[in-house]
């Protein structure tokens, strides 16, 4: 029992307030499961509306909880600026994923409550992950989030690819969590605690454990987390899973769980393993460079848009790892900002893909985007904003995020990583440009001609992330300030 933690005996009302977003999400998810058999088939849209409502309420609850920031449940959870930032981020991702899924699910005849319930459970898990301050709670959050997303990946039961995706994701994911759990066990053995702050303290005391134990534990946890964020060399699953999973789920996987896993990365490595930072820095340095390079060069060769976005998401994980390599508060803030910008642009791009994919997700090839600008100028314009942001053209969130990351890297004297990373982003421009070429410079394809008109929900699903991308690019001040203020609250 940590000495500095308040005693656990009866529930403190403050604990419940700090845990409010998670409670809301879990309660509504369960309610949906119960409601489903009681309602007739026609009310399936209701579940979408309900989950958006819940997610909005969750954001309100998270902001309310931030007003009462502090530890909950004996220090196992810790609501601080960092946790609130990521809680709001994963909730926003949830909203942006639900919006395009209305039409998508209707097209695939798969409108059930489970989709939405599982999504809420997964997000609840991510909320726990980002505010956890204790390795066991982290593990529980990770599992809640992962198990729900394994099922989501295989949500379209009839689809072979979705089944393959789900199975692959599940098998490899379980291995990864096992690695993580080994690391937790080693830490507990070496330091006698699982509280992140105490683990850090234990390494500085007179009877500090051998740094080898801690190092091995850090390496094991690194493997588990690198898998979750799809960083090289643990990225192999990502292209298959993103391609096979239903498109809104791919959008979700590429933003929500990834952001939460990066939050863990930052929190664990910047607090518990901060004392051995010099030891893990080369490891993360290599993983960052490898992720950027493998992701970008492999993406050059892809013909399938979802696969291409999967490789691009590996590359972007590399950019965030650059921020982690910087090992500074500036780096943490940069990673936070980048993940927010990345969530908007990537979920937005996937929303366009899901809009265009048609029944049975027939249209997934890059060729299918030919002439989209002539058939649906608004869709094409929004995708242009997302792609320019992914390339890193100024006035978009993607540019500013990249700029901020490499600034943090240079402040930490990582000159070579910066040069190689930025050159990588010039390589990346090529494959994003291919889509622009298709949309604007080719004659309309079958897919573009058959694209459904935009429904209000879809319009919102495209315009909201585009606005987010532009606001983060032109007026990043507010988010930057918040990220900057929260990045030092970790310890």
């Amino acid at each position, binding site marked *: 029992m940590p000495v500095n933690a308040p005693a656990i005996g009866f529930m403190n009302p403050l604990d419940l307030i700090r845990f409010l977003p998670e409670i809301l999400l879990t309660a509504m998810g369960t309610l949906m499961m119960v409601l489903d058999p009681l309602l007739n088939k026609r009310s399936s849209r209701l579940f979408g509306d309900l989950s958006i409502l819940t997610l909005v309420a969750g954001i309100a609850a998270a902001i309310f909880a931030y007003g009462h920031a502090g530890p909950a449940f004996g220090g196992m959870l810790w609501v601080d600026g960092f946790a609130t930032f990521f809680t709001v981020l994963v909730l926003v991702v949830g909203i942006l994923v639900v919006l395009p899924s209305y039409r998508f699910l209707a097209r695939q005849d798969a409108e059930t409550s489970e989709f939405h319930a599982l999504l809420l459970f997964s997000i609840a898990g991510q909320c726990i992950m980002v505010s956890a301050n204790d390795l066991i709670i982290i593990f529980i959050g990770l599992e809640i989030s992962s198990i729900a997303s394994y099922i989501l990946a295989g949500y379209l039961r009839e689809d072979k690819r979705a089944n393959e995706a789900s199975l692959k994701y599940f098998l490899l994911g379980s291995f990864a969590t096992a690695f993580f759990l080994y690391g937790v066990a080693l830490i507990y053995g070496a330091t006698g605690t699982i509280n992140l702050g105490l683990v850090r303290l234990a390494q500085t005391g007179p009877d500090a454990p051998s740094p080898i134990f801690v190092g091995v534990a850090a390496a094991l946890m690194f493997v588990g987390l690198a898998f979750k964020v799809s960083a090289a060399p643990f990225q192999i699953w990502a292209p298959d899973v993103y391609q096979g999973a239903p498109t809104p789920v791919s959008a979700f996987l590429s933003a929500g769980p990834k952001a939460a896993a990066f939050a863990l990365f930052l929190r664990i490595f910047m607090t518990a393993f901060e004392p051995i930072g010099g030891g893990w820095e080369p490891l993360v340095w290599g993983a960052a460079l490898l992720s950027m390079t493998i992701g970008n060069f492999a993406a050059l060769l892809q013909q399938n848009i979802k696969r291409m976005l999967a490789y691009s998401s590996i590359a972007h994980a590399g950019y965030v790892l650059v921020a982690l390599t910087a090992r500074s508060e500036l780096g943490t803030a940069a990673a936070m900002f980048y993940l927010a910008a990345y969530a908007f642009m990537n979920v937005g791009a996937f929303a366009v893909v899901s809009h265009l994919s048609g029944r049975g997700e027939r249209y997934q090839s890059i060729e299918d985007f030919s002439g989209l600008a002539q058939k649906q100028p608004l869709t094409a314009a929004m995708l242009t904003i997302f792609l320019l942001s992914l390339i890193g*053209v100024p*006035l978009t969130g993607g540019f500013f995020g990249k700029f901020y990351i490499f600034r943090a890297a*240079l*402040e930490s004297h990582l000159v070579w990583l910066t*040069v190689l990373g*930025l050159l990588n982003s010039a390589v990346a421009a*090529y494959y994003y*440009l291919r889509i622009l*070429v298709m949309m*604007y410079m080719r004659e309309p394809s079958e897919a573009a001609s058959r694209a459904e008109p935009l429904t209000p929900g879809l319009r919102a699903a495209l315009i909201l992330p585009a606005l987010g991308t532009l606001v983060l690019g032109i007026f990043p001040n507010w988010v930057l300030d918040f990220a900057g203020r929260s990045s030092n609250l970790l310890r």
Partner: protein
Amino acid sequence: MNLLTVVLFLPLLGFLVALAIPRSSPQSSRVWALLLSLATFIASLGLLFWFNRGAAGEQFAIDVPWISTLDIHFAISANGVSFWLMLLSTLLTPICVLISWRSIQNRVKEFFAFLLLLEFGLIGVFLAQDLFLFYVFWEVSLVPMYFLIGIWGHERRIYAAVKFFLYTMTGSVLMLTAIIYLYVRTQTFQYPAILDMLATGRLTFAPGEEMLLFLAFFVAFAIKVPLFPLHTWLPDAHVEAPVAGSIMLAAVMLKMGTYGILHFCLPLFPSAARSCAPWIAVLAIIGIIYGALVAMVQPNMKKLVAYSSVSHLGFVVLGIFSFTQMGLDGAVYQMLSHGISTGALFLIVGLLYERRHSLEIADYGGVATVAPWLSTAFLVTTLASIGLPLLNNFVGEFLVLQGTALANYKWTIFASIGVILSACYMLWLYQRVFYGEVNGEHVARFWDLRPREWAAVVPLIVMMVWMGIYSHSFLPPVGKVTARVLEQTQINVPFRVELKLPAGMEANRAR
């Protein structure tokens, strides 16, 4: 908020409104683009009233905090060099609108919207005084040009557009690294503040550090210029671009590179610039001769003009790296002249293309017989381009050669070959296209200049003559700025005191 801000933001406003114009009425898009670009031009002319021709410093300065967390400012101002470059952009945009009036029939709304966005980016590049803001404009101008080439270009447009984008992008990420590095060192993006730190010795670079930073900036600019051997994107981009795209690319966009070298590379990294000068001068001379030789054998008119740009821009780079007052003045004057005369060349080639739908020289011949005014306009432009006295290019080339002679006489000898070669390829082009027998019935049906085309051509010809006869209208403000730049490059270079000798003595020594 002053008139300069208005000039900068009018095109952006035009872009946003142009996006809202319904697709069904292309005529309103054209009219809107023309009105707006004319309004921008008139507003920029209005600035002349307040423009202080005797000042070496920045004028019309506006400085508004933008992203306060990182101390990024929206800081713009104009000096004797950037002011003329801004005027060049605002003058050429309405001309581009006029020239695209009929030749663009497909997706008219988007075309004019992108043209206005391009103008916004270009003006911004010349005015930005905050390195972050400069980079923003630098990249923003890339996107509309990419679309202009890629959507409205000729057969190989996609290849050309992607090549253009990737070349520039590669250069600019290196520059971004250097900009961030400078920020990390100085904690500011304010260009005047950084210069002040350099001047007062609060910021000093280790020699290797300075060289790397210089190269990071220089490569980005050299790709844009383009300096041999980084020029290979240019012929593709020019040949495939629509006429308006070629004009903006040649006349204004290439100047982003030379302006960047003059405005950033030299004052920031004087020692590195000086120690690289011989190498860069050699590359520039290779560019001058190589560009001219390749231009001579081109069967395609646009490609010929494109390679002639490589040659002419070589003079600009050579002039800058001569580190003499005359060389720098000439370089800037050559930038402006090249903008006018090469802009006019592409314009008239565009007019020929509208009539014959071919860029091959072999498809023409005897045009002078059927379209005398068109031929006269092209003749004046040709003569200007080869540097005939009393026309604009002569002034620039002469000053560059004179300045280079003061620095290194051998450079002048080799560079002069380029002048001779330019007369060869341009006059030969003129002969094959305009003289001789009328080549087939296509050419026989040519029409002469129409009122809209007159309106596009005349301003450029007037400028060629004006700049050739009375350079005093333009040179004094340029000279003030280049003198300041030269003075800034004296920092840390004590062994170059000889440059402070009067120009006459220098010239004597050189002889």
